[in-house]
C-alpha cells in the first residue's frame, strides 16, 4: 500500500505520475482500468484532488429554514456542520473541535444556539467562531479566537434551493461549475413558481461499492434500466397488460458536460411514470403541473423530456419526475453511504407531496423495488475486483463512440443517443483531469485541451 502511495504522490516525477494516471482512463478509445474503483492510494488522492476541489452538495435550503437550524453532513469523509445564520446566510464548518479534534455535534440535525465540545467544553457559536474556553484566564491566559475557530468551508453557495460547499478558494463560482447542466437540472428545480423543498426525514444506507459506479450510472446509464429493473415494471403492470408487450422507450438523448456532469432522458413516453409513481404523483407531473412547466421551461423541458437520470460531478445525483435526490458519500474505495431525499415542488398540493413521499420510498430507497437491483450490480462488481486478473481487465465504456452524434435541436452542450456512454466518458475524463492537476488553473487547461481533442475527433 505504502509503495503505491509513493508511486502516485511522492516517488516519481510529476510527468511519470501523470502518465501512470492517464493510462487508467482512455476516453478516446472508451477504456477504463478498474483499478480506479479499487485502489486505496488512488482513493486517498481522490479525497484531495476531487473531493477537496469540487463543489459538493451540502443540504437543501428547506432543511434549515430558521436561525440556528443545522444539518450534520459530510464532504467526502470530512464531517461538516451546515448552519443557518442570524442574517439568513448559510455557513459550513468542519465538525471538529480545534482543541483535540472531538466531534462538536453528534445529532443528525436540529436547532442550536452554540456548539459545545463534550470533551473539554470549548464552545463555538453557530458560525463556528470560538466563543468560550473553560478556565481560559487561569489555564491559558488567552486563546487566539480567530486562529482556533472551527475550520470554515470557505465557499458556500446555493443554486435554486440546493446548497453546495467547496474547500478550494479557487473553485469557479457555482453557476460556472454547473455550466450547461443548469439547463437540465432546472427540469427538476424550476418547473413551477416557488421552487422545491425536500420531504422531512431521509434515507441513509450503506452499499459496499466505489462511489463512481453510482455516480456514473446516474450520469450516463439508461442502458441498464431495461435489464436491471425489469422486475418492478412487470410486477407493477395492471393484470390486463402482457409484460412482453411493455417495451422500454427508444427515443431520447444524453448530455455530457466538460465539467463532468451528465444526464440522459427519453423524449416523450410520459406513460411509464404511472406504474412507477402511482396515479396521483404521475398525474401531477405529467398533466397538472405540465402547463406551467411548459410556460417556464418550454415544450421540450416542460413536457417532452421524461425519465431523466442526472449526476452533478462528483456525487450528487437525482431523477427528475421520480424526484429522488441523493449524495453518494465515499467511505473508502469500496463503500458508500447513500443519503437520499424526496424533493417536491413547494407549491404542490399536500396530497401530491405525500404521494411522492410514498412513491420514492417504494422505488428508490434501501427497500425500494428499483434501488435494490442497482446495489446488486455495484456490490458484485466491486467484489469481483478483488481478483488479480479481474482488475487487470479493462472495462468497456465505448458505447456511442462510432455511431455519430444524434444530438437534438434545442439541447445545449454535447449530446448523444440516450442509450450511450458519452456522459460516462465525460465524467471519467473530468475525474482524470482533476487527478492529474495541482490547481484549478491547471485543471481548466487540461479540460480545455480534452474538449478540443474531442471536437477534433468528432470532426
Amino acid at each position, binding site marked *: 500500500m505504502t509503495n503505491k502511495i509513493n508511486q502516485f504522490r511522492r516517488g516519481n516525477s510529476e510527468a511519470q505520475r501523470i502518465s501512470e494516471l492517464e493510462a487508467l482512463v482512455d476516453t478516446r478509445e472508451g477504456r477504463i482500468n478498474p483499478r480506479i474503483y479499487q485502489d486505496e492510494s488512488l482513493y486517498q488522492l481522490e479525497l484531495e484532488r476531487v473531493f477537496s476541489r469540487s463543489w459538493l452538495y451540502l443540504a437543501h435550503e428547506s432543511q434549515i429554514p430558521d436561525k440556528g437550524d443545522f444539518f450534520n453532513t459530510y464532504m467526502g469523509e470530512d464531517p461538516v456542520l451546515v448552519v443557518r445564520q442570524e442574517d439568513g446566510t448559510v455557513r459550513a464548518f468542519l465538525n471538529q473541535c480545534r482543541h483535540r479534534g472531538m466531534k462538536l455535534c*453528534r*445529532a*443528525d*440535525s*436540529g*436547532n*442550536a444556539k452554540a456548539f459545545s465540545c463534550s470533551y473539554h467544553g470549548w464552545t463555538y457559536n453557530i458560525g463556528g467562531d470560538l466563543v468560550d474556553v473553560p478556565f481560559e484566564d487561569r489555564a491559558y491566559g488567552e486563546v487566539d479566537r480567530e486562529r482556533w475557530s472551527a475550520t470554515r468551508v470557505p465557499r458556500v453557495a446555493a443554486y435554486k434551493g440546493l446548497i453546495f460547499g467547496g474547500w478550494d478558494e479557487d473553485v469557479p463560482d457555482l453557476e460556472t461549475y454547473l455550466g450547461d447542466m443548469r439547463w437540465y437540472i432546472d427540469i427538476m428545480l424550476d418547473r413551477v413558481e416557488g421552487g422545491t423543498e425536500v*420531504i*422531512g*426525514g*431521509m*434515507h*441513509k*444506507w*450503506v*452499499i*459496499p461499492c466505489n462511489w463512481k459506479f453510482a455516480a456514473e450510472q446516474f450520469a450516463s446509464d439508461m442502458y441498464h434500466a431495461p435489464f*436491471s429493473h*425489469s*422486475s*418492478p415494471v*412487470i*410486477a*407493477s403492470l395492471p393484470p390486463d397488460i402482457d409484460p412482453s408487450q411493455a417495451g422500454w422507450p427508444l427515443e431520447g438523448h444524453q448530455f455530457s458536460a466538460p465539467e463532468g456532469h451528465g444526464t440522459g432522458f427519453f423524449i416523450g413516453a410520459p406513460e411509464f411514470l404511472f406504474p412507477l409513481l402511482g396515479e396521483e404523483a404521475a398525474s401531477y407531473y405529467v398533466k397538472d403541473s405540465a402547463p406551467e412547466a411548459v410556460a417556464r421551461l418550454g415544450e421540450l423541458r416542460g413536457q417532452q423530456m421524461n425519465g431523466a437520470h442526472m449526476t452533478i460531478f462528483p456525487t450528487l445525483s437525482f431523477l427528475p419526475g421520480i424526484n429522488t435526490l441523493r449524495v453518494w458519500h465515499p467511505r473508502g474505495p469500496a463503500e458508500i*453511504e447513500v443519503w437520499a*431525499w*424526496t424533493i417536491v415542488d413547494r407549491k404542490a398540493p399536500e396530497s401530491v*407531496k*405525500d404521494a411522492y*413521499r*410514498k412513491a420514492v*420510498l*417504494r422505488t428508490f*430507497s*434501501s*427497500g425500494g*423495488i428499483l*434501488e*435494490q*437491483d442497482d*446495489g*446488486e*450490480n455495484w*456490490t458484485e462488481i466491486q467484489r469481483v475486483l478483488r481478483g488479480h486478473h479481474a482488475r487487470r481487465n479493462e472495462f468497456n465504456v465505448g458505447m456511442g463512440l462510432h455511431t455519430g452524434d444524434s444530438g437534438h435541436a434545442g439541447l445545449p452542450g454535447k449530446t448523444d443517443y440516450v442509450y450511450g456512454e458519452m456522459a460516462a466518458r465525460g465524467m471519467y475524463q473530468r475525474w482524470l483531469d482533476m487527478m492529474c492537476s495541482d490547481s484549478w488553473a491547471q485543471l481548466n487547461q487540461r479540460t480545455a485541451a480534452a474538449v478540443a481533442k474531442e471536437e477534433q475527433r468528432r470532426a
Partner: protein
Amino acid sequence: MLKHFPSLALADHAAIDPALQQEIEQFLYREAQLLDEREFDQWLALMSDDVHYYMPTRYNPMKRAAGEEFSAPDQAALFDEDKQNLTIRVKRLHTGLAWAEEPPSRTRHMVSNVQIHPTADGAEFEVDCNFMLYRNRLERDVDLFVGARRDLLRKRADDGGWQIARRYIALDQTTVLASNMSIFF
C-alpha cells in the same frame, strides 16, 4: 417504545388468558416460518385488505428534541405499504428477475417478548414483540436487523383465524447497515 403509540410497558396490564397468549404466539411463529420458507403468497394472505405495513426512519436527535427520534407520518419512511404495494413486492419476487433476491436470501425471523393488549374491539389485539432477523445471502453476506414490532391482530369472524391488520416496525438502526431491504419483517 414506539413514537406513534404510547408505551405499554407501564400500562395497567389486564391478565391475558394463557390460551390466548399461546394462540397468538403460535400464530406469530407460523407467520415467521412462512417468510423463512419463502411462502410469500401464503404470508401475503395473512394480511388484511386494509393492512398498513410501516417502518419509520430513525435519527440521532438531541435530548431536547427526543420526539424527533422517529420520522413523523408525513416524513420519509422505510416502508409505508398497503395491501396493493405488498402484493407488488411479492409479485416482483416471483419474476425471477428481482436481483436482490435472485438467488434468494436465507432468512431466520426470531420473535420474542410477546405482549398482548386487548383493544375496545373484542376481535382485535395489539401485540408487541421484539424481533431479530438474520439474513444470509450469496456466498457470505450477512445482515442482522433487530427491532420491535407492534402488530394489530384481528380474529376473522368466518374461520376464527388471525389476520395482520397493522404492522409497525421500529428498526434499531439510523443508517441502514445493509445494501438493501429486499425482505419482509
